[in-house]
């Protein structure tokens, strides 16, 4: 499986999760990169 970096960021008590992939292929739901 491809590597995905997961990071939580909190600003003003709102924490959101970012997931970053090194390659787009298979990562995006709505659109495949060329």
């Amino acid at each position, binding site marked *: 499986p491809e590597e995905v970096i997961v990071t939580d*960021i909190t600003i003003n008590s709102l924490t959101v999760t*970012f*997931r*970053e992939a090194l390659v787009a292929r298979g990562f*995006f739901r*709505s*659109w495949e990169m060329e």
Partner: protein
Amino acid sequence: GGSEIELVFRPHPTLMEKEDSAQTRYIKTSGNATVDHLSKYLAVRLALEEMRKNGEGSPINVEAASEKQYTIYIPTANNQFTVLNGSFSLELVSEKYWKVNKPMELYFAPTKEH
């Protein structure tokens, strides 16, 4: 904020030096994340990568290095780049500026001090 936002995140083509973080980032997050969250995320990721390169890495250093500020831009008509308000949610940005069903393209550059 239940929806998920997909982003292709790149250095600003003219405001960033070529060797600065030339990598395109593929990111998913929740729609309630704000532009400020994304800016902070970028600062943390770049600080971590810089420290890894330099063989450092204490949490205190990451905190200090990630204080660097970044401005986030979205491409608009005629090859212009619009600065995004930090308080906007990414869902709002998508509805207001992007509107198409593919990952939203955003650009970043260090915030200019005035």
